[in-house]
């Protein structure tokens, strides 16, 4: 958990993002990770998977990720940066 307004450690953020991704898409485990790839196009994450992914990030960090911020979380890298910077 991190406090609002306080950045999160990048490694911690990365672990959280990967864990959430593998939970919504267990079939991706073992596939080579492409950090900059588009989650929807490259990993075939549909809108229901994506919502589950966002909810898992929220549960792990306590962050309220508004829908308007979705464009900032389109890849693993970007999601990590989003959690680390905010």
């Amino acid at each position, binding site marked *: 958990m991190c406090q609002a307004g306080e950045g999160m450690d990048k490694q911690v953020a990365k672990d959280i993002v990967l864990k959430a991704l593998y939970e919504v898409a267990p079939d991706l485990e073992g596939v080579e990770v492409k950090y900059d790839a588009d989650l929807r196009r490259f990993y075939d994450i549909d*809108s229901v998977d994506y919502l589950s992914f966002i909810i898992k990030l929220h549960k792990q960090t306590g962050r309220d990720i508004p*829908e308007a911020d979705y464009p900032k979380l389109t890849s693993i890298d970007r999601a990590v940066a989003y959690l680390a910077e905010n």
Partner: protein
Amino acid sequence: MSDFLMPMLGADMEKGTLVKWFITPGAHVNRGDVVADVETDKGVIAVEIWQSGDIEQILVEPGQEVAVGTVLAKMRSVADKERPSVPGPKIIEQPMPSEAEIPQRVHASPLAKRIAEDLGVDLIKIKGTGPNGAITRADVEGAAKRLKEIPQPTVIAEAVAAPVTTGVASSDQMRRAVAAAMVRSKRDIPHYYLQTDVNVQKLMSWLTEENRRIPVTERILAIAPIMKAIALGLRESPEFNGFYKDGAFQPQSDINLGMIISLRGGGLVAPGITAVDVASVPEIMSRLRDLIERGRRGKLRSSEITSPTVTISSLGEQGVDVVYGVIYPPQVALVGLGGIRERPWADSGMVGAAHQLTITVSADHRVSDGHLGSRLLNRISELLQNPEAL
């Protein structure tokens, strides 16, 4: 005594492999309990039991592949217990497979069988001393005596896993299963197709507003209110909600909507959400999220595979505008959802832009016709104009 059979998990299933038992002889089970994992062409399914009672005997071991209808276990149901061993009217048996399909058939005299049942002895575990290795009355009584000396497990023991469990079936297997069901569908069901463009501008604005207001965990996607509208529409059009079996249509009172999930490794599953017409939109959303997550993990329950009365195919996110689906037998209708996109919309002599969705229905002409189908589509469209009322 009742039989617990290898269930038919979908129209295309012929056999299944027992992967894991969650029960042991002597265990008490309640209606709805998950008692075993069964691997099918669709992945591993958690199989529920539909009677309460005590498990007497397990006949199929983990790793064994058996035909649909094979007896997996024998149980003494609650009903049996109330009138023990009275040779009264026989309970109607479920259809039995041919004897050749029953694994580990026991060779025992009728008397020995009856005594074994009374004494609660598992015949499979007895070595027969009679002619051709048949189990005799003396064998059963001897075994019963030995059983008394050995403490019997009364609680659910640790589940024994077979070495074959893989979670999700291979895409080849799944492709074959889908192929079999679809060939049957196109051969037997005279499909007709209807489509309509629905203006979903109000729905999309309502969703944006709602999602800004409610916590992240309750956020809703368009699919949830659309499923609700479909379910409410079906309630007024019973000719689409049910099964076509034995040459006749059997309408269903529950409206259970199956959702086609395409798995990344290839293959499809179409598990269902039950009673969608009486569920709230947030409830539909959370159940759908749970269903899809478990579907991808190969952790579906047998009731979720067999319950759908109508299936939905939603391909909009893959850039498709219109879906003409193939009905999943024994169902009689499939609703196709294209993508929600902003397109020109003419109204009162003016052309503006509006978010639109093309909804199709593929239906069975043996049961309904274009007139009824149009009424269903129009009703769904109408319901979607009032999203806050869903």
